[in-house]
Structures are given as structure tokens and as C-alpha cells.
């Protein structure tokens, strides 16, 4: 009999203790952010898709089209086509990533011998089609240069043009 009442009382007390916790939080300020109106700042290490580092000394990218990134990529989503502009120097004519396949490992950035790649802070990545996720890094760089008021690096022409198609789909700038 005593245990019966004791259990009822301790049980009742434990319920009250739980309710005290929730009411304590009820009057506490809110911790969430109303997303489209308020935004959080991205952490400095955030890994978005990759983009070219804008080298302020030369005013352009450092990519030498060695294709190290394309080779190490686990999902094989980087397409680099290099073109030799002079016997010693090779630059990319096309650098496209198909971001929908990316697993954000960061191996491309680490493998780059000239440190030409960095992560962007782009986080709004939703698109309506597969093509919306294709990122053209050269186009991004050009936009970046325009914003910085620098000379825009033109796309080098390929030596041999054999009916080369445009990058598939619409390319995100």
C-alpha cells in the first residue's frame, strides 16, 4: 500500500519536473532563424562547389589544365579541356563541373598543384533540371573579374575546331 502511494506521488512529481523544464524553455528566446528573411553567415570553411582563385597579381586564374582534379575526383564529374597557348603554358578552354554528382570531399582542391581552386560560398543549389547544376568555372571567373573591375580573361580558342558543341545545357554563371 505504501509503495502504491509512493509510486503515484513520485510519478506525479516527476511529471511536474518535466513540465517545469518545458515551461522554462517556453519563455526563453527563440533559437531558430526565419530563413528567407534572416540568413546565417557561412562558416569560413564551408565547402560549396569549387571555383577558380582570382590571383590578384596576374588578374586571372592559375589553372594549368593538368587535369589532376579531374583524375582524383571520385565521381569523375570534372571536365577539363586544356589548350596550349604557347609551348610552355597550357590553359583551360573548358572547365565544367557537374555539381549534382559531387560528394563534397574536397580532394580536387587539395590535389591542385598550383592551388588554383577554392570552395565557393554558394549554398543555394537547388535547380529545376540537371543542367541547372552544371557549373562553368571559367564563366564564374569572368563574372568575378567583372565585379572586381579587372580585365576579363577570354576563353582561349581551341587549335582545332571540329564542330565542338557548346557545354551541355544552360550554364550557371
Amino acid at each position: 500500500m505504501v509503495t502504491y502511494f509512493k509510486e503515484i506521488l513520485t510519478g506525479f512529481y516527476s511529471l511536474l519536473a518535466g513540465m517545469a523544464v518545458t515551461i522554462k524553455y517556453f519563455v526563453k528566446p527563440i533559437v531558430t532563424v526565419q530563413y528567407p528573411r534572416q540568413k546565417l553567415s557561412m562558416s569560413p570553411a564551408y565547402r560549396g562547389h569549387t571555383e577558380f582563385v582570382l590571383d590578384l597579381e596576374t588578374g586571372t586564374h592559375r589553372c594549368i589544365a593538368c587535369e589532376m582534379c579531374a583524375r582524383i575526383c571520385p565521381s569523375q564529374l570534372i571536365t577539363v579541356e586544356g589548350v596550349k597557348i604557347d609551348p610552355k603554358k597550357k590553359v583551360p578552354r573548358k572547365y565544367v563541373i557537374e555539381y549534382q554528382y559531387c560528394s563534397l570531399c574536397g580532394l580536387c582542391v587539395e590535389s591542385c598543384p598550383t592551388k588554383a581552386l577554392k570552395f565557393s560560398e554558394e549554398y543555394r543549389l537547388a535547380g529545376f533540371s540537371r543542367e541547372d547544376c552544371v557549373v562553368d568555372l571559367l564563366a564564374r571567373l569572368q563574372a568575378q573579374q567583372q565585379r572586381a573591375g579587372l580585365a576579363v580573361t577570354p576563353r582561349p580558342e581551341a587549335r582545332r575546331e571540329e564542330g565542338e558543341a557548346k557545354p551541355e545545357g544552360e550554364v550557371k554563371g
Partner: protein
Amino acid sequence: MHEPGQEEKTYVLNFGPQHPSTHGVLRVELQMEGEFITKAAPDIGYGHRGHEHMAENRNYQQFLPNMGRVDYLHALAYNQGYCMAVEKLTGLEVPERAEFIRVITAELNRIASHLLWVGAYLLDLGAFTPFLYCFDDRENILDLLDRVTGSRLTYCYYRFGGVPKDIDDEFMAGCRAFITRLRGRFKDYDDLVTKNIIFIKRTRDIGVISKEQCVRYGLTGPMVRGSGIPYDIRKSEPYSVYPRFDFEIPIGERGDIMDRYLVRIREMAQSLRIIEQALDKLPDGPIMAEKVPKRIKPAAGEVYQAVETARGEFGCYIVSEGDIKPYRIKLRVPSFGNLSILPEIAVDTLVADLVAILGSIDVVVPEIDR
């Protein structure tokens, strides 16, 4: 199922794969008599992605991001297990500082995983609010890990021979602030959950697993510790720099759900202790081994490395034939072993108990399916 004219007493209830409390795509086929379960048969494989096969077609680096996706809740332990196995195979020495960073981040990740478990488990039992408190705490960890690893869930942070990015003072200060914060929150969790009479009634003496059953089914992690066997890879086969820290292995007595819950809660406190000590002892130095080959090409041989994840023992077994691709990688995942006991302990319980038991196993379905 039943033949006409035959009197049937039992029926089949499909529990999942789309059910609120199967945590992913697990299906349990239940043979029921009224609300009592007479037979429970888990049906796995809905989330099979063939990770082990993928490993055979990629080189060692390229398999790295897969490890964050086998068990997405404690991804860093998987990172660690795989990296350590490859390091063992190639004989790479990891600098001390990198080992410490690995321990700190992996333990933070373990707390995040346990917090998510506590929240999701309470959700299974019908309490919604603790779930969001846990997520509030977990969010702090994600912010911290975001600062160093660059992602919030499927981390791919460790590399062969170290870590690619050093931790900064802000991260360390954040860790210390988090330790104080979470220690303060434990009291709230106690009042809200642990001492709650309804929670006690739902978990005490339900889903009891004996020591003998633990051994027979090869259970690991909090499942086996809840039954009173102090088996933790961090202590029994120490790896990394764990032997340098002072921490305990919490164990339960009865082996019921409540004990497994308490083990996880106490483990969080122990992880906090480890992080605190690691932050204090953090040595200076490089974070990456000096000579890491661009292309990992280990000599022929085989290696096994086990680590303790939030769910139990994760083992990575690599067979190399001296190629740049592994010949075979076998992943020993804890959830698979832990789930295997469900048919035995679910018999003669109610559906509500099945939800409680399944939740207490803490399965991560993609990990089972791989």
C-alpha cells in the same frame, strides 16, 4: 496468406519500409496475434548502394567520401577507421597533433550522434519536445565541425597521414563553451526524460538482452555495454591516442532499454571529458605526415582496423594486391549485428514495445544495407 475455411489466429503486419519509426527504409515483417508479436523478421536491403563494390573500382583516395555515407551520423569514426587501415597498410605515420584533432572531432561527432539518437528515440516514444532540444545542442556541434571540416553531415575530413585543415583558437574556444553548455543541459534532460515516470515505465525491463545473448549475436557498442559487458574498442584494443586520456566505460546492469539509454547519456559525458583533456594536451606540430605519396599504392597484404563508433565496432578489412585500387574492402558495421537480435527480443511484445526496442538498437539503415 490464409486459405479459405481455415481459421486464422495470426495475421501479418508490414512495419515499414515507409513507417515513421523505422528510421529510414527498414521493413519488419510482423506476425501478430492481436497486438502481440509472435514473430518479427527484419527485411533489409532497401538502401543498398554497393559501397564495398565501389571500393574495388576506385583508388584509395577516391573511396574516402564513401566513408561519410555509410553511417552518416558518426561519419568521422568511419573516416578514422578507413584512414587508419590504409595508414597501417602503407606504414604512414600520423603526426601527434593530427591524432589529437581526429580524437576531438570524432568525439564531438559521437556526441552529435548520441544526441540525435536521444531525440529520435523520444520521438519514437511520442515525446516531441526533447527531440528539438537535442537538435538545438547538436546544432552547436555541427557549427563547430563545419568550421574545420567544411560540411555539416557527411564529413570527409581525415586524410591518409593526417588531416587537411588545422583547428583554430575559435574552434577550441567553441568546444570549451559547448562542453560547459552540454553539461548544464544534462540536468534538463534528466528532469524531462530520465526521471519521467512514463519514460521509465516504457523502458524499464523491456527488451532485456542477457550477456550470453550479447556474445551469441556479436553485439557491440552501447547494446553490449548496456548488458554489463565493458567492451569498448577504445579500451580493449586501444587505437590512436585514446590510451592517453582518462575516461570510463559506462555499463548497465539489467540490459534493458533504460540501461542502453543511460549508457549513451553517460557516454556523452565521457566524450566531453575526452575532448576536454585533448584540448588541454593538444601538442603543436604538423598536421600532415611529411611524405604522403600523391598516389597510394600499398604493397600486397591485408589489414584489419576496428574503431568504436557511436553504434559499436566498425571494422575495416582491406586486401591489397599492390595495385592503386584495393582488391577488396570489407566493412564490418555495428548496426547489422545489433539488428540481428531483434527477432529474438521482439517476440511476445506489443507493437509499442517493438518501436521502443527497435529505437533502442539505434540502427542506421544505410549502414546495414551499405
